[in-house]
C-alpha cells in the first residue's frame, strides 16, 4: 500500500460520532431556527472538524500506529472544536439557557476560571499519563469516553474567555494571563514528551500491524517511534501554544475594538485637575 491508499482506505464511520454530531446539529437548528448566520457557520465548522477528527485516518493512525496523529486529533478535539462550538452559540440562546436552573449555577461553578483552568490543563496532563493512555487505547468504551471528555472539558476551558454572555467573561488582561498560564502547562507537558526519549507510550513502539503499513511508516516516512513521539510532543507544545496565543490576541483585539468605557471618563475629578495618584489618597 502506498500512502494515498492508506489515507483513502482507513476512514472509519463510527456510528456514535455521526449520530452525536447529527443530534448536536439538529438540536442547534431547533434552538436557533435553522438560519445560516456567521455564528451557525462557526458552529457547523466545529461539528465538521469534530467528525473529521474522529472518522478520518487521523483517528485510525492515532489509535494504532502514530502518537503524533493522536496528538493532532487531541489538539483538534480539546482546543479547536470546543472553541468553534462555543463561539457558535448565540448570546440570546445562552442567556435563556443560563436562566434555567441548574444550568446557570452549574456553569457558575464550572465557569469559575480556577476550576476551568484546572479542568483544561488537567485533561491534557491526566489523559497523557503513559499508563492511562495505553489503557485507553486498548479499551473501546474508555476511548469514546476520552474523546467526549475532550470536547466537554474544552468547552469548560474556553468558557471564561469566550462565553457567549459577556458578563461571564474575564477581562482581556486576565484572559491573557489565564491563557498564557495554560500555555505554560501544555508547554511543560509537550517538553516532557518531546525530550523523554522513545517509548514513553509503549503501545506505539510495536503496534499490531493489522493492515501491513508499518514498513511504510517506519522506513518510507522515517517515522521511527522516537521521531513520532517528538512530533507529538512538539505538536502539543508549539501549535498548541499558538492557539492559546491567538486566542489572547483575539481578546485584546476585541477589547480595543469595543467602545470606550464611559464610566471611567465621567469619574469624579476628570473634568478638572486632580492631584497625583498615590497610595495615600487611593
Amino acid at each position, binding site marked *: 500500500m502506498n500512502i494515498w491508499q492508506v489515507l483513502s482506505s482507513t476512514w472509519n464511520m463510527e456510528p456514535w460520532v455521526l449520530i452525536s454530531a447529527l443530534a448536536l446539529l439538529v438540536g442547534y437548528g431547533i434552538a436557533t431556527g435553522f438560519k445560516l448566520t456567521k455564528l451557525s457557520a462557526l458552529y457547523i465548522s466545529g461539528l465538521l472538524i469534530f467528525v473529521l477528527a474522529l472518522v478520518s485516518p487521523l483517528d485510525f493512525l492515532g489509535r494504532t500506529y502514530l502518537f503524533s496523529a493522536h496528538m493532532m486529533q487531541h489538539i483538534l478535539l480539546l482546543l479547536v472544536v470546543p472553541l468553534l462550538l462555543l463561539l457558535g452559540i448565540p448570546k440570546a440562546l445562552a442567556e435563556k439557557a443560563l436562566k434555567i436552573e441548574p444550568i446557570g449555577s452549574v456553569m457558575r461553578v464550572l465557569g469559575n476560571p480556577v476550576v476551568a483552568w484546572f479542568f483544561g490543563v488537567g485533561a491534557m496532563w491526566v489523559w497523557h499519563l503513559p499508563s492511562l493512555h495505553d489503557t485507553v487505547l486498548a479499551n473501546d468504551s474508555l476511548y469514546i469516553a476520552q474523546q467526549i471528555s475532550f470536547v466537554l472539558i474544552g468547552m469548560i476551558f474556553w468558557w471564561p474567555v469566550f462565553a457567549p454572555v459577556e458578563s461571564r467573561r474575564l477581562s482581556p*488582561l486576565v484572559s*491573557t494571563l489565564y491563557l*498564557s498560564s495554560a*500555555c*505554560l502547562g501544555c*508547554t511543560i507537558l509537550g517538553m516532557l514528551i*518531546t*525530550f523523554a526519549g522513545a517509548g514513553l507510550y509503549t503501545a506505539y513502539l510495536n503496534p499490531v500491524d493489522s493492515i501491513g503499513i508499518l514498513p511504510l511508516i517506519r522506513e518510507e516516512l522515517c517515522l521511527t517511534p*522516537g*521521531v513520532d513521539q*517528538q*512530533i507529538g510532543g*512538539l505538536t502539543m*507544545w*508549539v501549535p498548541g*501554544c*499558538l492557539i492559546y*496565543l491567538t486566542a*489572547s*490576541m483575539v481578546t*485584546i*483585539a476585541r*477589547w*480595543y475594538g469595543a*467602545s*470606550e*468605557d*464611559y464610566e*471611567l*471618563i465621567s*469619574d*469624579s*475629578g*476628570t*473634568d*478638572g*485637575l*486632580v*492631584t*497625583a*495618584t*498615590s*497610595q*495615600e489618597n*487611593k
Partner: protein
Amino acid sequence: MSTRIPIVPENVKPLPALKENEGMLTWVASIDHKQIGIMYIIVSMIYFLIGGLEALLIRTQLAQPENAFLSPEVFNQMFTMHGTTMIFFVVMPLLIGMGVYLVPLMIGARDMAFPRLNALSFWLVVFGGILLYYSFFTQSGASEVGWFAYAPLSEKPFSLNKGPTYWALGLLATGIGSIASGLNNIVTILTLRTAGMTMRRLPLFVWMILVTSFLIIFVFPIIASAFSMMLLDRLLGATFFTPAHGGSAILWQHFFWGFGHPEVYILVLPAFGIISEVIPVFSRKPIYGYEFIAGSTVAIGLLSLGVWAHHMFAVGLGNVANVYFALASMLIAIPTGIKILNWIATMWGGKIWFATPMLFATAFIIEFVIGGLTGVAIASVPIDWVVTDSYFIVAHFHYVLFGGSIFAIFAGVYYWFPKFSGRMLSETIGKWHFWLTVVGFNMTFFIQHFLGVMGMPRRVYTYHDFPYWGSMNMISTIGAFVLAISVIIFMWNVRYSLKHGKKAPDNPWNAWTLEWATTSPPAVHNFDLVPPVRGRRPLWDLAHPDNPDEPNAKIV
C-alpha cells in the same frame, strides 16, 4: 496601615540636588522614584564605560592576526565580562531606570506603588554589579566562560577559579532586584493610574514597560533556579550539570535559554516604547495604529517564551524539534514587522523635525531592521548551522542590542534629558555624537557579518593571517574606537549641558504625554495638579479644546 514610618528622611529639594552640596545621603537614602531612576541611569553609565573599555581591549587584541596584546585568559575574561555587563548592568538598568523615572509621571502618579521596594531593587542591582566585578580581585580573575556559561565548562572541574561563582552570585542578586522592580511596575501601572487614564490610553512606553515587567517576573525565576543549581554544583558538589556524575549539560542550556531568549525581548521592548514616544512627537502626528503596537507587544512577549531552542540548533535536539522551533521563531517577525510598519506610517506625511532624539529614532529603525533580518535568516536551521558561533552571530546581536536598544536609549536620553535635569542637551554636540555613533557602529559591526560567513569563529583570542581577515578586523577595530570617541562626546555633552545648557521649558518638544505637564525637573511631589485625561494625548486635548482627540482615539 497607611501612615508611613519615617525611617529615612524625605527629601525636600527638587532635583537635581547634588550641586546643592547636601551630601550624598539625600540620594543614598532616597525612596523617590525620580532620584532612583537617575541613580539607575548614572550607575548604568558607569558600567557602560567599563563594558566599553572591555570591548576596546577585545578589539585591540583582534586588530591584527597573531596579536599578543592580551593573554588568552584575559581575553576570555574580557568577552565574558563585556557581555554580562552590557546586558545585565547597562541595557537592563538603563531601561528599568527610565521606566522607574517616567512611569509614575506618565500615568499621573505620585510615586511607584512601593517606593522602598523600588530602592531595594536599585541597590540589589548596584551590589550585584560590585559582586561581579569583585571577581577580578580574586585568584586567577573573573569568569572566563562566556555570558551563557555553558556547562560543564562553568563547572568546578573545568573552572577552578572563583570567577563563575561570583558571576552567578552577582547575577542572582541583580535578578532578584529585577523581579522586585518588575512586580513594582506591574502593581504601579495597574493600580495608580490617574482618573481617566484607562489601559487603552496608556502611553505606549508604559505599555511596553508593563509587558516587559510581566516577562521579567516570569523568566527571571527560571535563571534564578539555574543559578542556584550552578552554585550548588560549584560550592556543595551537587551534580546537576556535570555529565561525568550523571548530570546533564543540556539541561543548563535549556534553563539558560528558556530565560535568555525572553531576556532579549526584555532588553528591546522598552526600547520599542521609547521609539513609539519619540517618533510621533517629532513627526507632529499621533502614533499610527496604537492598538497594533500595543497588541503586537503582547504577542511578542508570549511568543518569546516558547522559542528558546533556536539557540540550540547545533546541539542535536533532532530535526523535528529544530523545524518546529525554526517556524515558531520566524513567527516573531510578524508582530515585530507590524511595529516597524507602524513607525514608518507615523512618519509618513508628517512634518518631521530631525532633532537629535529623532535622528537616533530613525537610525534605530534602520539598524534594527538589519538586525531583525539577520535574525530571521539564522532562525532557519541550515543557515544557523553554517554561521553559528561565528562573527555573523556577533554582528547580528550587536545590531539588535546596540543598533536597537542603545540607539533607542540615546534617543530617549536626548528626549527626556530636559525633563530629568531642567536643561537641554546641546543639539550641535548631539549631532556630532549621532553621526559618529552611526559611522562607528556600522564600521565595527557590519563587516563582522562577512568575517562570520568567511568562517571566523567568535570568542577566539587570535587568528591566523588568512586573506583579508587582518584588514577586515582592523576596520572593525577602528570603528570601535570611533564609537568610543562618540561615547566620550556624549558624556561631555551631558556634563557641559548640565552646567551651561539652555534652560529647558516644561514642554520643550511640544509633546503630549503627562510627564511634560509638570515642571522640568519635576517637583518632589511630581504634579501640583494632573491635567484631565480624556484621550491618548492629554496635553494635545488641553492645548486644543476646540479640536480634541476622540475619546476612543480611532486614529488608525
